[in-house]
C-alpha cells in the first residue's frame, strides 16, 4: 500500500492521506466554529452568524443585540480558542521533535508554568518592582513577559536534560516536575502579595480560561502565534532529519544548533502568547501530535499543519463545552483539557516505560 503512495502523486509533497486528513479537519473546523457561534444562552440563527461575521470582515459598526453577542462575545472567543489551540499543538509538536520524545510537552516540562509565573509577576508586581515594564511594552506586556518566562524555562530544561547532544527523557520530565513545583511555589508567594482584583486575575491563570477574549488582545496574539507557526512549518525538513538524531541531521547538512534554538524559541513564543491570554491550558501539545502521529505518521511536513488545525479544533470544542455543560457557570477550559489529557499522558507513559525497561 505504501508502495502505491511512493508511486502516486509525483508533483505534491504531501502524501495523499495527509491531504485528505487536512481537508477533512479544515471542513470540520469550519462546522465546529459555526456550532460554537450558535451555542450560548441567546438563541441565534445560522444566517445571523454569517451576517455578523461578514459585517466584522467589512469593518461595519454593530447592529443590534444579536450582532453584538456574536461580534463582541462569541466570535473573539472562538478566534482566540483556535489561535491558542493551534499554537499550543504546534509548540508541542516542535518540543517533542527537538527533544525526540512524545512526552516532551511544553506543559509537562514546565515551559507553560514558567510563562504563567512571569505573567503573574507582571500582574502583581507591575505597581512595585516591575514598574517600568508595562509602560515600556503597553498591550504586549503580558505576552512578552510570558514569552520570556517560557524561553527561560526552555533553556534551563534544555541544559539540564541534554548531555552530549542526547536528551535524557527521564531527566527532562523530572526537571519539568521540579520547575513546575518551583513556579507553583513562587506563584503562591505572589498570591499572598496580591490584592483582591489581582487575585481574581490570577485564579484565571492557574486554571486556564478563554473567557477574557477581547479583540485588542487577539491582534497581538495573532501575530505572536501566527508568525512563529508559519516559521516552524517551513522547518519541517530539519525536524524530520532530527528524528534520526542531531548527529545525522548534521550529516545531512542542517545547521542543527542554530535551527534548534530557532525552533525552541518559536515554541516558547507560541506557548507564552497562549499563556498570556488564556492562562495554563495543558495537554493540547501532548494529545494532538500523538493522535496525529498514530494516524498519518511522524512526517513533520504533514504533521505540523495538521497539528495546527487539529489543535484549533480540539480547544474550540473543549471551550464550547466548558461554557455550556455547567451553564451559566463558565468552567475553566484548562480543567476540561486536563480531564482529557491526563489519561492520554498515562497511556503514553506506560508505552514509554516499556522502552526504558
Amino acid at each position, binding site marked *: *500500500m*505504501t*508502495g502505491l503512495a*511512493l*508511486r502516486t502523486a*509525483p*508533483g*505534491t*509533497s504531501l502524501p495523499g492521506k495527509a491531504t485528505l486528513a487536512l481537508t477533512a479537519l479544515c471542513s470540520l473546523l469550519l462546522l465546529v466554529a459555526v456550532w460554537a457561534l450558535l451555542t450560548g444562552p441567546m438563541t441565534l440563527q445560522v444566517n445571523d452568524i454569517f451576517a455578523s461575521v461578514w459585517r466584522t470582515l467589512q469593518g461595519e459598526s454593530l447592529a443590534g443585540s444579536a450582532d453584538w453577542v456574536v461580534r463582541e462575545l462569541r466570535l473573539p472567543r472562538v478566534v482566540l480558542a483556535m489561535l491558542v489551540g493551534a499554537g499550543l499543538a504546534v509548540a508541542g509538536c516542535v518540543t517533542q521533535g527537538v527533544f*525526540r*520524545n*512524545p512526552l516532551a510537552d511544553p506543559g509537562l516540562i514546565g515551559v507553560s508554568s514558567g510563562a504563567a509565573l512571569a505573567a503573574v509577576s507582571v500582574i502583581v508586581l507591575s505597581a512595585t518592582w516591575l514598574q517600568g515594564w508595562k509602560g515600556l511594552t503597553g498591550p504586549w506586556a503580558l505576552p512578552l513577559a510570558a514569552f520570556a518566562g517560557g524561553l527561560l524555562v526552555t533553556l534551563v530544561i534544555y541544559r539540564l536534560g541534554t548531555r552530549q547532544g542526547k536528551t535524557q527523557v527521564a531527566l527532562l520530565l523530572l526537571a519539568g516536575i521540579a520547575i513546575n513545583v518551583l513556579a507553583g511555589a513562587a506563584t503562591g508567594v505572589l498570591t499572598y502579595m496580591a490584592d483582591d482584583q489581582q487575585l481574581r486575575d490570577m485564579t484565571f491563570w492557574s486554571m486556564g480560561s478563554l473567557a477574557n477574549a477581547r479583540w485588542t488582545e487577539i491582534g497581538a496574539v495573532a501575530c505572536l502565534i501566527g508568525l512563529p507557526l508559519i516559521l516552524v512549518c517551513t522547518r519541517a*525538513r530539519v525536524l*524530520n*532529519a532530527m*528524528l*534520526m*538524531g542531531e*548527529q*545525522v541531521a*548534521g*550529516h*545531512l*547538512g*542542517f*545547521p542543527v544548533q542554530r535551527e534548534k534554538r530557532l525552533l525552541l524559541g518559536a515554541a516558547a513564543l507560541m506557548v507564552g502568547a497562549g499563556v498570556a491570554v488564556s492562562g495554563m491550558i495543558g495537554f493540547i501539545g501532548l494529545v494532538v501530535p500523538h493522535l496525529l*502521529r498514530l494516524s498519518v*505518521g*511522524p*512526517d513533520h511536513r504533514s504533521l505540523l499543519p495538521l497539528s495546527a488545525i487539529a489543535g484549533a479544533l480540539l480547544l474550540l470544542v473543549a471551550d464550547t463545552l466548558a461554557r455550556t455543560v455547567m451553564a451559566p457557570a463558565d468552567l475553566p477550559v484548562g480543567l476540561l483539557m486536563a480531564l482529557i489529557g491526563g489519561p492520554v499522558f498515562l497511556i503514553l507513559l506506560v508505552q514509554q516505560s516499556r522502552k526504558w525497561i
Partner: protein
Amino acid sequence: MTLSAKHLSVRLGGRHILSDVSLEVSSGDRIAVLGANGAGKSTLLSCLTNELRADQGDVLLAGQALHRMPATERARRLAVMPQSVTLSFPLRVHEVVALGRSPHMDEVRTRHWQQEAMQLMDVWHLRGREYTGLSGGEQQRTQMARVLVQIWSCREKGGEGHYLLLDECFSAADPAHQHSIMNRVSEFAGAGVGVLAVMHDMALAASWADRVLLLKQGEVVAFGPVELLTMPQILQVVYDLPGLLANDYARNNRHWMIRNPANPAPAERLREYSYA
C-alpha cells in the same frame, strides 16, 4: 580532488585522542581504518565529518577548509553512515531513505533513485514497514540506502569529488549482507567515490579495502596497502595481540584477501607472502 586531514590532533580532558594524524582520501579509494577499542577511529571520523573541530590541524574538502564550507554544500558531497541510528518516532523505511535527499531538496523527483537504493540494500520489500520495528541489521541496511541516495548522482555523473564515510556500521548485519553491502560500496568506489570505512572486522577489511590506516592510541601505526593486515608483527603492535594469535589473524586475513577486488593476481601475491 581529495578529502584530506592534515596533522590532526584532538585532546579531550587532558588525554590525547588523536595526535598528528594525516591522511588523504582520493577518488575511488577504499580505505579501512582499523585499531583496538579507544584507538581514536571514531574521533577521526568525527573530525572528517566536521562534527568535531580538531585542536590542531585541518580537514580539507577539495582544497577548502571543511568547517568554513556551507553545511548543505558539504552534505551534497560527503555522506556519512553512523554506527547506529535510533528513531524517536516510527517513520517508515521509504521515508527514512527519502531523508537522504534533504540536502538536495528533491525528495519527490528522485523517487526512482530511492527505489534503486532500497533494492540495492535489499530493503525494498520492507519499504512500508516502520523503521523502529526492524531488526538491527535491517535498520543498518535502511540507513545505508539513505546514505547512498544522498550521493546517488555519482552513479550517473561519476563520483569524482564525492565521499562516503562509514563508521563500523555493519556490526548488526549478517555475514551475507555484510559482504554484499561492501560489494555495493565497492561499486560506488569504482564510480569514483572516495570511501573511508572504520572497521572492526579485520576479515571484512582484508576482503574489501585497498588501503588500511592502522591506529593505536591516537597515533598512526601504519598507513599503506591492505597487505599490511597479513603481517603478524604489525597486528601484534596494533591490537596488542600475543604472537600466536597475531599469526592466526594474519593467515586468516591472507585468506580473505583472495576476495579483495583490489587483488588482480591474488595467487601470486599469496605465494609471495607465504614463502616470505
